[in-house]
């Protein structure tokens, strides 16, 4: 076989390349639409990121199975944000510029979320926070492209205070001790919780406060110091791995027998603790536990999730699922994938139908008007789930726990 003259080769290549660009590549790209998710897939909070990614993927699978969105199939792209704001920013930029992602689902950490919100606004792509919940994400970092479907760091402690205020009055409790990780989240949560109690008319005596480092492996001294004061009530804003360590060491010291404790016993922690989770402790959840939502949709989701991942969906999966559902309804309402059109469609406060229940997106700050769920850890280990569950679940209504629109708008950048 004789080689073609070099000029012919170049011309043919250029022609083929041009043809591919003109017809092939866009034709291929038109089949699917990308959604980007940069979250923690490794490191200390990876389990939250992985679970919310799994939830988002389930929602996308469901949309694709039902024929897609505006006739297009959706693809979820993921990248590890490694808890670093600049990595998150780079990932989001790559999603938008290289993969033409039309929406972003948020990270685990609020510091990363706030950084990503800036890029989303810059490229006019909507971003949906489903795990990170700093009040600043819809405050200082607010733009028309930022949306949040998880209760904020203001709503959570105020919901807890509302629930606990009743108990304080009922049992005539007076003394309270707080323990929280020594960083912004811990301090602001404790501060808001105490402010909430005051608002709800409870006069408490804070007999001590502890601020262990995030990720501490040893809480024995903290627990001893708490027990030395014999408080009526302990507010523990520890979560995840820290909460597990705290719980195991507190159990050993007999803290749960001596006093009433409130902590974030979310499903992942309950799974890890199994029977060692303290029965009767007060807990909260950012999403309704799936077994309390008796709808066909939740049932289908839970079964499908269990079939795919061999575990039951928890908070993060439900929130990831509803973040994608929120975006999808924005696309439907806008009749377009265009970021600005979708943001406008969602920005005027529509009602969103999701697996966790319907909610309104508040026009003033794009925060979902969702309750925070409170309850106590079940007396017995649930046979089906192999762990304790949240029992006697009460939804603290959003209108009682949200920061007012006026206060929120004062935080937002002025246009």
């Amino acid at each position: 076989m004789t080689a073609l003259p070099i000029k012919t080769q170049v011309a043919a290549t250029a022609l083929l390349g041009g043809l591919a660009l003109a017809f092939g590549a866009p034709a291929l790209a038109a089949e699917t639409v990308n959604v980007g998710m940069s979250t923690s897939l490794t490191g200390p909070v990876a389990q939250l990121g992985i679970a919310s990614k799994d939830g988002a993927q389930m929602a996308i699978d469901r949309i694709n199975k039902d024929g897609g969105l505006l006739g297009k199939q959706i693809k979820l792209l993921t990248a590890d944000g490694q808890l670093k704001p600049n990595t998150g920013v780079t990932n989001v930029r790559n999603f938008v510029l290289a993969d033409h992602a039309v929406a972003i689902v948020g990270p685990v950490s609020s510091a990363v979320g706030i950084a990503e919100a800036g890029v989303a606004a810059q490229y006019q792509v909507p971003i949906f926070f489903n795990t990170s919940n700093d009040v600043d994400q819809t405050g200082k970092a607010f733009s028309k492209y930022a949306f949040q479907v998880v209760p904020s760091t203001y709503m959570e402690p105020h919901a807890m205070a509302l629930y606990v205020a009743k108990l304080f009055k009922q049992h005539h409790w007076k003394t309270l001790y707080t323990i929280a990780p020594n960083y912004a989240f811990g301090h602001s949560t404790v501060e808001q919780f105490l402010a909430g109690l005051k608002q709800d008319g409870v006069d408490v005596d804070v007999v001590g406060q502890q601020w262990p480092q995030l990720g501490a492996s040893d809480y024995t001294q903290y627990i001893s110091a708490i027990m030395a004061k014999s408080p009526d009530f302990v507010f523990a804003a520890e979560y995840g791995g820290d909460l597990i360590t705290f719980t195991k060491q507190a159990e050993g010291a007999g803290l749960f027998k001596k006093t009433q404790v409130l902590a974030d016993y979310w499903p992942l922690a309950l799974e890890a603790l199994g029977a060692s989770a303290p029965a009767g402790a007060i807990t909260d959840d950012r999403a309704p536990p799936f077994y309390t939502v008796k709808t066909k949709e939740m049932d289908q989701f839970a079964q499908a999730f269990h079939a795919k991942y061999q575990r039951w969906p928890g908070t993060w999966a439900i929130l990831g699922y509803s973040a994608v559902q929120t975006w999808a309804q924005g696309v439907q309402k806008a009749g377009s994938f265009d970021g600005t059109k979708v943001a406008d469609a969602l920005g005027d406060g529509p009602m969103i139908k999701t697996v966790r229940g319907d909610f309104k997106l508040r026009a003033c700050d794009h925060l979902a008007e969702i309750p925070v769920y409170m309850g106590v850890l079940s007396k017995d280990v649930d046979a089906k789930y192999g762990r304790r569950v949240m029992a006697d679940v009460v939804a603290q209504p959003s209108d009682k726990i949200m920061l007012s629109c006026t206060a929120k708008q004062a935080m937002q950048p002025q246009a």
Partner: protein
Amino acid sequence: MSLDTVATLVFSGLTSASLLFLVAAGLTLIFGAMHIVNIAHGSFYMLAAFVVASLTQSMAADSTAVFWLSLLVAPILVGVLGMLTEVLVLRRLYGREPLLGLLATFGLLYLFEGIALIVWGGQYRSIPIPHALQGHVQAVGEAFSIYNLFVIAIAIAVGLFLWWLLQRTQLGWRVRAAVEDPETLAASGTNVRRLFTAVFALGAVLAGIAGAVTGPIESITTGLDAQILVEAFIVVVIGGLGSVPGAAIGAVVIGLFETAGVIWAPSFASAFIYVAMILVLIIRPSGLLGVTERVG
């Protein structure tokens, strides 16, 4: 402050000290004998905890028996891993820039973390406290957790064993000689290479014991490695680099200092150990039992 409160606080301080000593002892032993700052030490600790978590989970029949067994198996496994690490990686770096050892073990920390993530995933794991060690004993009107007593007992046992090994055996004599003068030791017919392998493996075993023993009272997840390393380093620096008794004293100092911080200045408690380290270094730059660095 009443006597019972003081007793409880001293007890919790000693529990912390025991955990720290178990990790710090291996770290200081390796540094003393081989002059390697082993950043991967925390990995051995973490991997042992993961092994115990897997064993107790997969053989749930009699958790207590399985727990005792895994307390033996996990340190041995990480000891073997330590041996391989020394033979395959560190052996090539002796006599070269100390920074290389630091960077190599730093790389290993990431490698082991990656492996742990692939094998065990990102989920938290929690090991149940074995039945025999659940509950409390009552003394001076306070309840003391039996498991914490067990942790303290293990730390004391390991401390005594190390003392005996280093002071009363041939191997210990050689290790101490290697610290002082490796060249003369090699000239007198000791296989220093093999000795270093043994010391490194022993250090890994100690980290393994710490990880296995601590497992039931903490959440097991990747990230445990780096977290424990920082505190263990502080203990080692306070005690004097290379000194096992120093590590024991350093651990007690930190344990009690942290407790004091928690009671008297809760807002600054997490900074207290750093303050303790700085104070010690101002008074004795080589640490409490440290020897001043040999010159030349």
